[in-house]
């Protein structure tokens, strides 16, 4: 496996609890290895500050880079806010096309 794919369930609200589950589940799945992560966040409908902050910091463990897939204007605003204000500690970019995201993440495979 070269990439790690992650997809949120529909109508997810990212609060602290959800963010913690997401990070610990991902780490268990990854089995100690670091990957570039493709994160399909189209299921997210809202976020809380505590959740954003948690993902930006603890969410970086065992990730090399993150590509976020969005489809709606509102989600673009939420994810732009996350990048600029919560400041994830690994390279993170927003994409509308999965292929573009994969091309970006390829640059992080060593």
């Amino acid at each position: 496996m070269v990439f790690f794919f992650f997809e949120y369930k529909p109508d997810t609200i990212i609060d602290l609890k959800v963010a913690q589950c997401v990070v610990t589940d991902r780490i268990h799945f990854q089995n100690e290895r670091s990957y570039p992560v493709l994160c399909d966040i189209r299921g997210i409908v809202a976020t809380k500050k505590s959740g954003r902050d948690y993902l930006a910091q603890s969410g970086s463990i065992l990730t090399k880079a993150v590509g976020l897939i969005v489809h709606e204007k509102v989600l673009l605003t939420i994810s732009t806010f996350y990048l600029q204000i919560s400041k994830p500690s690994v390279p993170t970019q927003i994409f509308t096309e999965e292929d573009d995201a994969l091309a970006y993440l390829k640059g992080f495979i060593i």
Partner: protein
Amino acid sequence: MKKTHDDERIVAIHQMLFEMARCNFNCQIPLSSNDDELERLVVLINMVAEEIKESIFHVGYVNPHRTYQFIAQTTFVLDSSFLIKSFTPEVTYFLGYSEVELIDQPLAGIVTTASLQQLQNVLDTSISLPRTIALDFKPKEHLPVSVSCSIGKLVNSSEIILNLVTPARQDSYSPLAYENINEKHNKTRKADALLTQKLYDYILAHLEDPLPSLKVLASKFGTNDRKLKDGFRQFFKTSIYQFYNDERLKRAYFMIEHTTIPLKNISVMNGFNNYSNFSKSFKKRFGFSPYEMKRNETGFTSLPEG
């Protein structure tokens, strides 16, 4: 029909902005299922309000990327001659004194003379209790902190109780670090705040590497080491190294708890040059060594259905 709906949303935005102007950041504009420019503005305003509420009003123009989850109620019990008879455990974190240094000691040792006088006045005059006044506490290692305290009496007892409220950072790994919102701000230039924020974010983003020397950091941020050091301490009440070390130890704790990565590797992944330093530092911070921690190998936490 669409127009009426938009009008309602615009009214809600106006209301929210007025609330924010009144320094009420607790409201949120209701979300709709629309995916349009107006909805983008709504989510943006909501998130901005949340950031302002959690950041600026707690540490003063620096965003710690953390959430204050709850308020801790802190209480002192004094006898009629102002000897400290008892207190809630939070007091030791708040003031930095140990229990032994406080129990049966005069309150005069931890508040300023003026505050003690004020307290005496409240109790002497026949003002109805409880009553709230600001007392200046003298923490062990920091500058005096002004805190609003409610002064009251217990039923059927001559003892006096002091109640104060301290906001607490939510921190799942350690005793809570208490900070006081009433702490007097020094005059701070906005530039210093921006510089300190940059350094703070830089440290968080580089926990896996050893911390560069103060000189190297200073040149990286185009300033001198004194300014960098003092600015950081002023905003975060801790040294640059202590903050870095604390954050990487918490990260290491998280990794030990949630992964099966060998401890030696975890130590390297969090910027430690050798395992013995890591182990010592870890034990000092958490009270037990890394190998004494129970490791979670049982699989997954379940995501709530959503």
